[in-house]
């Protein structure tokens, strides 16, 4: 669990260029971390690469916070 969280946070920091301490689990990508909808598409792609999961578009649309991403990955990774 914590391993997934750390790797997700690392990807978010790298892609959005935000301070690591801002990437809390309840942080919203758009409202708190300055992402736009295309940034989320890119983040989802990075999660898929990192964790070897498929995140279909309808699932990706529901990922709006860091914890949404961690939860989806933990539930779906192989």
């Amino acid at each position, binding site marked *: 669990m914590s391993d997934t969280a750390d790797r997700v946070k690392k990807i978010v920091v790298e*892609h*959005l*260029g935000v301070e690591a301490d801002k990437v809390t689990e309840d942080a919203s990508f758009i409202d708190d971390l*300055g992402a736009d909808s*295309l*940034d989320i*598409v*890119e983040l989802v*792609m990075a999660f898929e*690469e990192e964790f070897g999961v498929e995140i279909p578009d309808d699932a990706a649309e529901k990922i709006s916070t860091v914890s949404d991403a961690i939860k989806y990955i933990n539930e779906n990774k192989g």
Partner: protein
Amino acid sequence: MRRVVVTGLGLVTPLGADVETVWANLLAGKSGAGPITRFDASDQKCQIACEVKPADHPYGFDPGKRVDHKIQRQVDPFIVYGIDAAGQALEDAGLTEMDDDLKLRTGCSIGSGIGGLPGIESESIVLHEKGPGRVSPHFVHGRLINLISGQVSIKYGLMGPNHAVVTACSTGAHSIGDAARMIKDGDADIMLAGGAESTINPLGVAGFAQARALNCSFNDRPTEASRPYDKDRDGFVMGEGAGVVVLEEYEHAKARGAKIYAEVVGYGLSGDAYHVTAPHPEGKGAELAMRMALRKAGLAPGDIDYVNAHGTSTMADTIELAAVKRVLGDDLSGASMSSTKSAIGHLLGGAGAVEAIFCILAIRDQIVPPTLNLHNPDEGTEGVDLVPLVAKQREVRAVLNNSFGFGGTNASLVMKKV
């Protein structure tokens, strides 16, 4: 009639990432050339280029200074260079804090000759190897030529004309000329104008080498490869970077007490109507552009003190020189003429803007930059001061700046002291 002056300058080049560093290195006769470090070029015919240096180099470029981390990741380097150069120019002009009304009267005309070739290359590989679902959502707008103007307008809130010229190696000059006209026509009071390029990637280098345009015979002596007008010249050396100027309506600049570098007084454009890569052998198109620029400026040949030549270090150099002679006279009426591509390489879509800035600095400091590596001037250069090897202090009242591009597109700018 509305007059147009230059009130701010910004440069990112292989000789430095700010105007004064670049200018000092250029006047000192330094070369920005070296072996290609951006990628493994060992299988390329051409293995040298004038690269913008990394941040830890004494005159390197730090992209983090003016471009957000997120944008750096999403866009091609030519856009990063362009945003930085535009920021420098605005800072130099004292225009980083504009009121809303002025923002409505301020626009951007910053182009590129080729655009995001490195990103097109790398994403093509992603598409091929990983499939369409792995292509970046930022792929398109991170490669588009008008996205320097787009990004700069968003960053600074500039709602005036938003334009981007694409005329190969004439882009920078056309960008400045077109933007000056927009100010003259009353479309804007201030325009950020210039060009940028960054195509030192495998596809870009291979493409220009296959077109027989690049120097491929000086791989072991990179700093000697760009040698305009020299008998041993053998193709251009690719450079990269950006040049952006702030153009401003004269009364507007005067009213706010802006520092005024020079006035843009003449702009000439023409087409060769001859060949896609080779210039017309008699330089007819080049001559037309120069004559138009001088006529618009209302200047006589004897008024021009410095010509910054297109001078790419190819066979075309002597064609350009013959055309300049026809326009200015066999001795260029006393003008000095040099090619600064000998030092920074050919910045393609950025060249015309960067070289316009060198012309402006020549006016400011009354000194003209040298043509490096000019040891054995080619036939036809007799009696012309090509400023070989060493910068030259001299009177510089007005300058002529030439840019010619693939497709046979020509642009000449005339600028003078105010």
